[in-house]
C-alpha cells in the first residue's frame, strides 16, 4: 500500500512537471476525452474535478442511498441499463420493494430489477402491511472487497482512488468473484463473457459528472460525492447525527455505500 502511494506520488510529480514544461498540450480538461460527445459546454456536476489534476491517492468518494426518499420509479435502473447497454436479466443496480406485516414477516420482490417500475401493488399478499419501502441496490464498493480478494488473475481490483472495477481485457470469466460478492451485484455479461458490476460510473466521475443513476434520480434518494469536499452533501450527511448503516456489516467488507433509513430487515 505504501509502495503504491509512493509510485502514485511520483506519477503525480512527473505529471505536474510535464504540465509545467508544456509537454502535455492544452487544457487539463482534455486529459480525458469525452468519447464521441463534447463535454466542454456541459456543466460539471461534481466540483473540483475537471479543473484539477486527478490525484488517485487522495480521493475519497461515498455513495449514500436515502431509503426515505426512494419512490421506486426505477429511473436509476433505466439510466444504468442505457449507460452501459446492460444485457437483459443482468443488473448493475436494482430497486427492491419491501413489505412488512404485523408479525414481522418480510416480503420482498423486484420484478425485472425494477426496470419497469412498480405499476401494481403485490396482489399475492393477503396480510395487513405495517411498513413498506423501496431499497435501491448497487455496488457497495467495499474497502475490503471479497471480489478482488478472490479474483485469480487480478482482473478485478480496487483502484488507488477507491473504486472496485473490472479489467475486461484480463478477466477469464471464471465467475469466482460472482460467488464471493455478498451483495450479488456481479454478473457474467453474456455478451462479453466477462464479469461485470456497478462501478459508480467511474468514467463519469473522472469527467466531473455524477453517476448516471444519481443524475436521473428525481427525488435525490441517491447521493454521491467527494468526502474530501466538506461542502458536499455526502460529507455533511456523514458528519451529521443521522443513523447511517451499511449492508451486511457482519461480512467485514467495510462498504463505502451507506444507507439512510434502512430498516434492520434490509439485507
Amino acid at each position, binding site marked *: 500500500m505504501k509502495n503504491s502511494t509512493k509510485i502514485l506520488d511520483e506519477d503525480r510529480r512527473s505529471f505536474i512537471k510535464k504540465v509545467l514544461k508544456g509537454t502535455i498540450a492544452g487544457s487539463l480538461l482534455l486529459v480525458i476525452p469525452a*468519447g*464521441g*460527445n463534447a463535454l466542454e459546454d456541459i456543466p460539471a456536476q461534481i466540483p473540483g474535478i475537471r479543473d484539477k489534476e486527478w490525484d488517485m491517492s487522495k480521493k475519497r468518494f461515498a455513495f449514500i442511498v436515502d431509503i426515505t426518499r426512494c419512490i421506486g420509479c426505477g429511473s436509476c435502473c433505466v439510466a444504468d441499463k442505457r449507460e452501459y447497454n446492460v444485457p437483459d436479466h443482468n443488473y448493475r443496480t436494482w430497486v427492491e420493494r419491501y413489505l412488512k406485516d404485523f408479525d414481522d414477516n418480510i416480503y420482498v420482490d423486484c420484478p425485472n430489477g425494477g426496470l419497469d*417500475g412498480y405499476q401494481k401493488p403485490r396482489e399475492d399478499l393477503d396480510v395487513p402491511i405495517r411498513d413498506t419501502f423501496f431499497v435501491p441496490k448497487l455496488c457497495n464498493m467495499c474497502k475490503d472487497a471479497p471480489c478482488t480478494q478472490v479474483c485469480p488473475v487480478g482482473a478485478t481490483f480496487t483502484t488507488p482512488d477507491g473504486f472496485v472495477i473490472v479489467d475486461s481485457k*484480463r478477466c477469464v470469466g471464471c465467475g469466482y468473484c460472482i460467488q464471493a460478492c455478498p451483495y450479488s451485484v456481479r454478473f457474467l455479461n453474456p455478451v462479453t463473457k466477462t464479469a461485470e458490476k456497478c*462501478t459508480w460510473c467511474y*468514467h463519469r466521475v473522472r469527467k466531473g459528472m455524477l453517476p448516471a443513476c444519481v443524475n436521473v434520480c428525481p427525488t435525490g434518494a441517491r447521493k454521491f460525492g467527494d468526502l474530501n469536499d466538506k461542502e458536499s452533501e455526502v460529507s455533511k450527511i456523514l458528519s451529521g447525527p443521522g443513523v447511517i448503516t451499511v449492508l451486511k456489516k457482519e461480512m467485514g467488507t467495510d462498504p463505502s455505500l451507506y444507507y439512510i433509513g434502512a430498516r434492520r430487515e434490509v439485507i
Partner: protein
Amino acid sequence: MHTPHNAHVKRLLAALIILFVIGFFAKQAFQPKSFGKYGHYRADAIMEEANRPMRLMTNPSCVKCHPYEAGHQMTGLHKTISCEFCHGAYADHIKDGKKIGTLPVKRNAEITTLCLRCHNRAIEARPKQVIKTVVMPDHLRAQKVDEKHSCNQCHYVHAPLKYINHSKKIMGLI
C-alpha cells in the same frame, strides 16, 4: 551397460531446468506492461475505464437544441426529472454533434404508464412527503373527466401544473 547409472537423472534435471527457465522468461514476456504498477492488476485498465464514453449526457446537453420544452421543464415541478429517462440516451440521438437517431416520444397510454411509475398511490411504499400521488381512476372521477383520459390531457408533461395553474388564474380561482 552403455550409459552411466545416473545419466537419465542428469538429463531429466537438465530438461526440468530448461523448462523452468523458459517458463520464467515467458512469464516476464507475456505479463502486461503496466501490471503491478499500483497493485496486483493492470494499471492501464484504470484509464481505459475512465475513458469509457458517456451515453447519458444530462439535461443541459438537451437544452441546447430543445429550448422550448426545456424552458418549461427547468422551471416546472418536473425540473428534477432527467430528459433521458423518458426519451432515451443522448448517445442514441447525437454523435459527434450530428443527429444519428430519433428518440421516441411517448403517447397517450404510454404516458399514463410513465406517470404512474412515480405517482401511483396504490404503491404504498412511496413516501408521501416526497411525492404527490393519486389513485386511479378515482382522481379522474374527482376531476369530473372521462376515465379514459390520459394524464397529459390535463397535465403538460414537462411542467405538470403549468397550464392548470394558468387556467385557474384566468378563472380567478387563484
